[in-house]
């Protein structure tokens, strides 16, 4: 365990301080912090970082809003509830690569399902994965499809811990539905939601698989988020030192994000 995690980490840190490009066969040379300087001065990196910010922000926000609403819906009584609650987990166990391929198929501009659906609303064919902003939209839809069920299930698990007697009593005392959610349900499920948020943020930030098969970062660089950008640098251009430094910068950003969420969780627990 330690051999497989600590050694690569040290190796990565060391690599990030060196110049080593596998394609040129030049020897490794120590160059200090030059890789980091190069990255921070690169407009490509900043463009990709901004793109990642919007991608992660959009994915996680939509997944949370949709996921929580759906969880409230599935928490009520209706016929077929158990079947629906079992089926909803199907997207999240699909291999992300397979999900990406299927969505690429759905968004095919000649005979994909997406165009058939917008025809119903009287809109003509769209070149989903060819138009940069539509492609960006498409990869977000694919991520939302795959991971909203995760938020649904996490929220449902949290809702089970809500004391029914308390909500009943509040209703009898004349509290509105919204008040019950605000003052009884939300405080109970808050910590569970925070864990869901933490995991989704980390995973959306690191995701590569879906974009790899759906758009390969394209068209142009329209969907080249940091995870994919790093992959390209490492395994298309074999610029090892640069890639290692990029990865460490990503790790740093994620850690800061995660720490702030964890601290928020701790604070709400105390209060």
């Amino acid at each position, binding site marked *: 365990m330690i051999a497989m995690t600590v050694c690569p980490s040290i190796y990565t840190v060391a690599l990030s301080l060196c110049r080593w490009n596998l394609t040129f066969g030049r020897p490794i040379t120590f160059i200090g912090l030059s890789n980091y300087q190069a990255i921070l001065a690169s407009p490509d990196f900043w463009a990709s970082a901004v793109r990642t910010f919007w991608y992660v922000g959009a994915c996680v926000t939509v997944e949370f809003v949709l996921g929580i609403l759906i969880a409230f819906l599935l928490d009520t009584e209706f016929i077929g509830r158990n079947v629906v609650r079992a089926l909803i987990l199907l*997207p999240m166990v699909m291999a992300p690569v397979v999900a990406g391929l299927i969505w690429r198929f759905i968004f095919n501009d000649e005979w994909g399902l997406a165009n058939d659906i917008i025809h119903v609303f009287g809109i003509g064919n769209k070149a989903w994965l060819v138009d940069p902003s539509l492609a960006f939209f498409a990869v977000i839809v694919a991520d939302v499809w795959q991971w909203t069920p995760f938020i649904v299930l996490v929220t449902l698990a949290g809702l089970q811990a809500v004391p029914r007697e308390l909500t009943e009593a509040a209703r009898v005392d004349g509290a509105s539905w919204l008040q019950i959610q605000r003052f009884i349900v939300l405080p109970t499920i808050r910590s569970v939601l925070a864990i869901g948020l933490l995991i989704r943020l980390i995973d959306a930030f690191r995701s590569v698989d879906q974009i790899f098969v759906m758009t390969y970062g394209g068209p142009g660089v329209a969907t080249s988020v940091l995870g994919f950008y790093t992959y390209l640098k490492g395994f298309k251009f074999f610029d090892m030192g640069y890639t*290692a430094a990029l990865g460490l910068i990503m790790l740093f950003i994620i850690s800061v994000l995660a720490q702030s969420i964890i601290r928020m969780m701790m604070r709400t627990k105390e209060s």
Partner: protein
Amino acid sequence: MKTFAKYLAVLAVMAFFITPIIWTAITAIKPTELISSSPVVWFFRPTLDHFRVIFFEDNILGPLVNSTIIAVLSTLGVLAIAAPASYALSRFRIPFGSQLASYFLSARMAPPVTVVLPLFLIFRNLNLIDTHTALIAIYITVNMPFAIWMIKGFFDEIPKELDEAALLDGCSRFHAFVRIILPLTAPGLAATAIISFIFAWNEFLFAILLTNFHARTLPVAASALMTDRMVLWGELCATALVIYLPVVLFAMLVRKYLIKGFTFGAVVQ
């Protein structure tokens, strides 16, 4: 009226999440000439042609065998290490034991691209690129944190007095663990194993970078059906089903534990 709206909402939710899966299944048995017709054809005479092609012409059997070997062996490896480790974490005071959680979490945060780079270089030096061994070792490592955390949760639920009674009766620690604790937590262990299997089975990035022919796994084989010029959608959907069906079966078996596995045991369903 209100109930009607509710059922409509449930239907809409299901339509969004299930349609892509159904569409894949339908495309997998659709004749090639109808796949690229627009609007989409929903009624046709089903064919098993795509499955015949992927099994007998494209030879998906190789990747299928590879994926099975790698997922099964890595899962066994995870269990063999995680079970005793979580028992120790659950029963003894381990130095830095409480810090392990944050260490595990930080391992999860690392972008896989960062981890795969040094591993790629290390495995290249060891001549382990494109072998089962490399992927098995990686999946054991990647799945270990969640497995230890999940199994520890199951062990924590069993009262310590049970092991102590066994020890008093002259059982050794090892025997108490193997004969009493393990059987009691068998369902939890099985769930952990299945989830770890799913993670290994679905993994793509490590697999595509560390294999090329000999140890190629199913997700890599699926992505290879997509070439620059054209995509073989029928074959692709058939392959997708081959990858997906076992996972669906397993996921339904461990439905109760799935969220626990996906959240490192932090959320109990």
